[in-house]
């Protein structure tokens, strides 16, 4: 799966969590600017486990890997 395809899936789930139009969610926007808080972030992690079979909650959750849709998609792509 390409980074763009992962981004597209992540944008869909963020859109449903934050009740925003998917078009308003750009891959380089930091998660806090998209209205994602701790709970929203955990919802994204649950989605990642369900769709990509990666359990990330007990990992260090470094900012550089989890800051934006793009960085998270790149991280998932590397881990797959």
């Amino acid at each position: 799966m390409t980074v763009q395809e992962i981004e597209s899936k992540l944008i869909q789930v963020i859109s449903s969590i934050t009740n925003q139009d998917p078009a308003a969610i750009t891959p380089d926007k930091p998660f806090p600017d998209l209205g994602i808080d701790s709970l929203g972030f955990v919802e994204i992690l649950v989605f990642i486990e369900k769709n990509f079979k990666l359990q990330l909650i007990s990992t260090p959750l470094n900012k550089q890997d989890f800051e934006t849709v793009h960085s998270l998609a790149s991280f998932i792509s590397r881990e797959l």
Partner: protein
Amino acid sequence: MLLNYLSVRNKYYLNGFDWVMGVIDLIMRKTTCAGNASQVVFMLDTPPDETAFRAALQRFLALFPVIGGSVSRHYTLTPYWKMPKGNAAPTVPLTVTRLDDAAGPDGLLAAVTYSVNTPFGNAHEHLVFHLVYGRNEQCLAMTFDHRLFDARGAESFMNLFQEFLAGGEDSRIAENVRLTQGFDLRPWKPKFLAGQAVNRKMIALSRETMRSLPINLGGKPGFRYRIVSFSREEAEGIYTRAYAEAGYLMIMPYLFARVFQTLHGVFERRGVPHGAYVVPVSTDLRQAKDIREELFFNQNSMFFFQVQPGDVPDLKRLIGVIKEQMYEQVQSKFPHNLMAASSLTRIVPLPVLRRIFNLPLQGKIASFCFSHVSKCSYTSHDLMGCRIVNVFHTPRMPVPPGIGIFFNSFDGRLNATISWLDGTFTDAEVAAIESELRCGL
């Protein structure tokens, strides 16, 4: 379907969580000086004009007759919010307090503490505004009945008021406010399945003795508060530490863990017998793009965390336990199940439900309460032409346990409100909690 359609046209049927708020209100009215109310406080840099405020407020509130409603029951036994006859404008009191020099440095907090501990005047009163003028500071406080608003709804309502003041057309302001909601009795099967899942969780929580502090309910006590405010710079530092200790965006688990450690110290010093901590944490279930669609009533549910005292002293371990339980509950959709399951309780009269509430945990509902409203729904920096210095909440926490820490943020600032039923903590314990939060976060 016909029944649902007819009801949706003219009534707002309460959801299960509204009913739970109603039970807590009944318990609190029976045991403390007032019901399940809370308060949002806007600290202002200059004194607002009382006459102009009174006039604007009256015009604004006239758009929302729902404020003067009361709980009633449909012949199907589903509770609903009964609108006032003829959709009459609500009567909402406005109190004005002018503090003199004798009030001291905590005079303003004492004034808002008094206002939130004052019971509503009658069954149709769910909102009271307060203007407090101090020597060097002033505030506007809105005391609200938790059956009418949750915390985010209350902030959003004030935001709507600001939009109204800024020149919003009367008809447009209330345009999308949803005041009807169906029975939500069907489909019944998912609700029973949700009930089964919730029941299993509650039984698991009740297997172990719950750690709790004794509550003295003699003389129907009131709540007391201490506000621990952090500047933008201090808040940034806290978030950076949260990211380092708990992971990116894990602010809530970090704050929760630090609060746990602080209150654990109080429990240990008191020599509270061993057992596990059980802590409910509220979570917002709103789905609508426009907050006005879900402005009134309760759109919340709960997480329940159970933590062993042995897991508390090690911060990394405690954060891990909290994150793991949060993840598990999001995965199993526990907050949604709780909301669905609670809708089944609506058939039970509140006095009976009050007794049922006490069964699984033998009257101990929680060790303490924790809440974190991550982003303030009040988006403006002004109110009535005055600059807002800070916004904080003074909630009357559910009793039992009658103690809790409520975090909110405004304009980059972070506030922790320590809320306790008078007599539950000593003054020395509150000073220690405040100091540990200030230094430990």
